[in-house]
């Protein structure tokens, strides 16, 4: 029976993680592994061929999905455990991989451990990111980059009262991108610039932990180095984005090496006892960056005059950050828990950059810009949780924060200096109350609400007067589970001559049913409604338009369905479907006013008076068949279709339909 339940759990795993068709989740090989010497070995490798055929906008497909053609090691798992815990070099080795050999999302995770002596964790990930400058957001900045992450953590004496840590993290990004530059002044034309992105972050960590007399002290020291050596070059005559502008660009070169480091300290002290817990954390980071920008531009300006401009910028930025937290937890009885969290955070951002512009061999003079932004936040969060009975519990809390933002912006030019300093405070009070019910063992119900008041938010769309309501119910038995959830969040941030409101409502239902060992089904539906209404101001034909509104309405309906059938004793069939539909504000596509059609001043207002609504649909049905050829061998085939369709009016649609799939062998040896 226990094995049966375990099998059901495994089936449910496969169902819930449906969205991509491969790798195959079915297990292969003996479940208990095979013994080799003093080790037990579990292993599986899935090698297969992925294919795709895309109709429509390939760029949008690559941005959303990006699976391609070719042979891949779709997934693998190797686990070796010492059965007696006394392996010579290691007692545990776990290595899992996914998508190796060209998938856009590849990963590899390794754990190596020798009991009492060491533990080593490594993760490596690679993401191929493609953005063709998607048009809805009108982004002209295309990227086709690879980002690689690796983390290494080594612990010496992991089970003793005294431990040592060492770690290394590397994050690199490289590849071509398309950027833009506006020349020669703020009314000049914009030009595309190809850029070669080369960014790298290296972080080194050393630390230790000691436990003595019930106290645990954890100390970590890190060095975080960053460099950006991306290149921007143009050596051909380019036309700008505007057809009516005379600006041309014949040569452009920008070098802007940007290097720096952020060394940090972190201290953590912990004491945990039967009725009382206390821990404190302090960290300090002293970030600093140095930079040089050397930019050379040759061409003609918007008045058709020949221009030869060099810009030199030198400077540095620093951001020391201090954070401290104190947590206190009292649980005098098994029913009552009282906690308090007090935090302090202080960020000071300083920067200065000396700007020199040389136009047609005439130096305009050096301008030194300097800026300071300081944010100090203190918050205290007190919470209580009380179990009234076996079937009911209450919880609540009062949260308070005060934030002070100081800023200074200044400029110095030819001995004349100007500086402005500002300071403002913002306090937030928030209360939370909730109720937990468990009328029967399989059923849990939770209701809570939060009310918050801020006196002076920093931004027009920040939270000011907000309340949130949550309700959740869940029923769970061995063959059937169902849950329902409703969440709403309302925020208004209005002042005398300005208003902003934001309403979010989310309703979800889902369930899974496993009536037989050979059949499992799950399905779910979620509605996410967002509508915001914000006052805006903008210029059209040099006239300021105030009192207009930006109204954004999104009505997202999402659903998924998955069914898994075991056919005979050898075949597993999985059928799945997921859909996202944004119905906008309910209007048909033809009645939505195009955003970019205005040609006169009088027409400018409707740009924003029209509700911004972008109906679209995104569907991904899939089917996968896995046949057990042998205890150690499975043959798999799968197909997944992606369909993206925009129902709003714009000049270029980005719709696509993609047929993707794979054939693979999953084996254990």
């Amino acid at each position, binding site marked *: 029976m226990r094995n049966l339940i375990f099998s059901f759990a495994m089936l449910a795993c496969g169902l819930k993680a449906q969205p991509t068709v491969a790798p195959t989740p079915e297990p292969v090989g003996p479940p208990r592994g095979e013994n080799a010497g003093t080790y037990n070995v579990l292993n599986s490798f899935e090698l297969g061929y992925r294919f795709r055929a895309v109709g429509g906008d390939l760029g949008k497909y690559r941005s959303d999905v990006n699976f391609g053609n070719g042979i891949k090691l779709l997934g693998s798992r190797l686990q070796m455990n010492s059965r007696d815990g006394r392996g010579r070099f290691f007692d545990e080795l776990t290595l899992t991989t996914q998508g190796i050999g060209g998938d856009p999302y590849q990963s590899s995770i390794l754990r190596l451990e020798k009991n009492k002596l060491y533990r080593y964790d490594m993760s490596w990930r690679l993401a191929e990111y493609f953005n063709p400058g998607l048009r809805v957001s009108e982004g002209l900045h295309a990227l086709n980059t690879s980002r690689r992450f690796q983390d290494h953590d080594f612990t010496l004496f992991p089970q003793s009262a005294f431990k040592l840590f060492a770690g290394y993290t590397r994050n690199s990004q490289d590849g071509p991108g398309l950027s833009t530059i506006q020349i020669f002044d703020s009314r000049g034309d914009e030009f595309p610039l190809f850029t070669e992105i080369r960014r790298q972050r290296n972080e080194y960590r050393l630390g230790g932990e000691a436990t003595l007399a019930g106290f645990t002290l954890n100390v970590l020291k890190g060095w975080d180095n960053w460099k950006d050596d991306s290149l921007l070059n143009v050596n051909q005559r380019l036309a700008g984005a505007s057809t009516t502008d005379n600006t041309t660009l014949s040569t452009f070169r920008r070098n802007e090496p940007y290097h720096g480091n952020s060394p940090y300290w972190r201290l953590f002290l912990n004491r945990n006892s039967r009725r009382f817990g206390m821990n404190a954390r302090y960290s300090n980071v002293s970030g600093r960056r140095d930079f040089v920008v050397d930019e050379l531009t040759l061409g003609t300006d918007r008045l058709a005059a020949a221009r030869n401009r060099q810009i030199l910028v030198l400077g540095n930025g620093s951001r020391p950050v201090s954070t401290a937290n104190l947590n206190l937890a009292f649980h005098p009885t098994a029913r009552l828990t009282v906690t308090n969290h007090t935090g302090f955070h202080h960020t000071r951002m300083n920067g200065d950059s000396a700007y020199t512009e040389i136009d047609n061999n005439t130096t305009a003079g050096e301008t030194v810009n300097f800026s300071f932004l300081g944010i100090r936040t203190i918050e205290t969060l007190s919470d209580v949780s009380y179990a009234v009975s076996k079937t009911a519990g209450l919880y609540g809390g009062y949260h308070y924060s005060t934030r002070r933002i100081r800023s200074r912006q200044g400029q110095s030019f030819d001995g004349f200096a100007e500086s402005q300093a500002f300071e403002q405070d913002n306090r*937030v009070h928030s209360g939370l109350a909730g109720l937990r019910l468990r009328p029967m063992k399989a059923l849990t119900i939770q209701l809570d609400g939060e009310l918050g008041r801020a006196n002076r938010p920093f931004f027009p769309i920040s939270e000011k007067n907000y309340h949130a309501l949550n309700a959740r119910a869940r029923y769970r038995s061995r063959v059937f589970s169902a849950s329902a959830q409703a969440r709403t969040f309302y925020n208004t941030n209005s002042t005398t001559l300005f208003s902003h409101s934001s309403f979010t409502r989310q309703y979800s239902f889902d369930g899974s049913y496993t009536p037989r060992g050979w059949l499992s089904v799950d399905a779910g539906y979620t509605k996410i409604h967002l509508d915001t209404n914000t006052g805006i101001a903008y210029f059209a034909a040099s006239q300021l338009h105030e009192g207009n509104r930006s109204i954004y309405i999104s009505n997202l309906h999402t659903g998924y369905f998955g069914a898994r059938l075991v056919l005979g004793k050898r075949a597993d069939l999985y059928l799945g479907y997921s859909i996202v539909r944004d119905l906008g504000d309910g209007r048909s596509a033809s009645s939505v006013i195009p955003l970019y059609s205005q040609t006169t001043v009088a027409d400018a207002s409707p740009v924003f008076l029209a509700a911004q609504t972008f109906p679209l649909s995104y569907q991904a049905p899939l089917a996968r068949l896995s046949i057990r050829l042998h205890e150690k061998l499975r043959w798999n085939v799968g197909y997944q279709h992606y369909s993206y369709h925009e129902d709003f009016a714009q000049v270029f649609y980005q719709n696509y339909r993609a047929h993707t799939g794979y054939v693979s062998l999953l084996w254990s040896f």
Partner: protein
Amino acid sequence: MVQILLYLVLAGTRAFSQTPSPGPFADAIAKASPEGYVGNSVCRACHPNIYQNFFRNPHQKSILSGKEPPEKTGCEGCHGPGRKHLEASGGKTTIPFAFSLMKPAEALDRCLTCHGKDFTRADIRRSSHSQSDVACNNCHSIHNSPVPKSLLARQQTALCYQCHPGVRAQFSMPSRHRVNEGFMNCTDCHNPHGTPAPTWRAGLRPRMVTQALANEEPCLKCHTDKRGPFAFEHAAVRVDGCETCHFPHGSPNPKLFRRATTFALCLECHNGAGNFGRNGDGVTVQAPFHDLRSPRFQNCTTCHFRIHGSNADSRFLR
């Protein structure tokens, strides 16, 4: 009379059945410590399924160390002394700490006996999960974990989705972080065991979002080029965080934007409304030459392309 005799016979049988049969455990019961600890090897006789695979379980280390006291090692380290369980010849109710029968808070207390000193669990008592009675054994399956790491009851995303269907829906959007693709996990950005108050926004929300080592938003762990420090920081990034402009999980809009068009995103803050911004007289309105009728001015980041922060220009133009 027959009924009385029958009752006596049945009662006798029932009483006999409840009497512990020392059998193979008599020796173990006799050797039990004064607190009732009998040792792990006794458990394997009746629970071979658990025992056979236990060498893969991280808790095996407590047995192998050979130095841990009985209350901190093996089966009895978690479930308590086993003498009563042996004397009763089994039964869940005779296990001092049977997790399936324990209240969530009790299960949490039990696990924290050993796991409470870890840095990553410093905030577990005040976490939203603890408040909601989600205890350790709701997410971790100590004896039957199908995943190789952390003894999770399911693959991590599936585990989180079962209580957070709305988040699952967000990760189904066209523009999304690649969680469903297996490239990243929920715990890359969240700590299910609770986190300190955020260092961005007003410090109260969002909850359960982990922080990068410099106590920054977790987004900057991967998107390091947005991190800075810059000579000119875009205040929105530092004051209210990345969520000012982006949905973190998924969005129907490209680049995880909160709005489908760039100008709507920018103008909702840059509207000059009083009381807001650095100097309290509004976040700067654009200059008059920006003619919003023209597409070139509707794409703010075409020119202001260093929008996350710049070293050379306070308007993020270079």
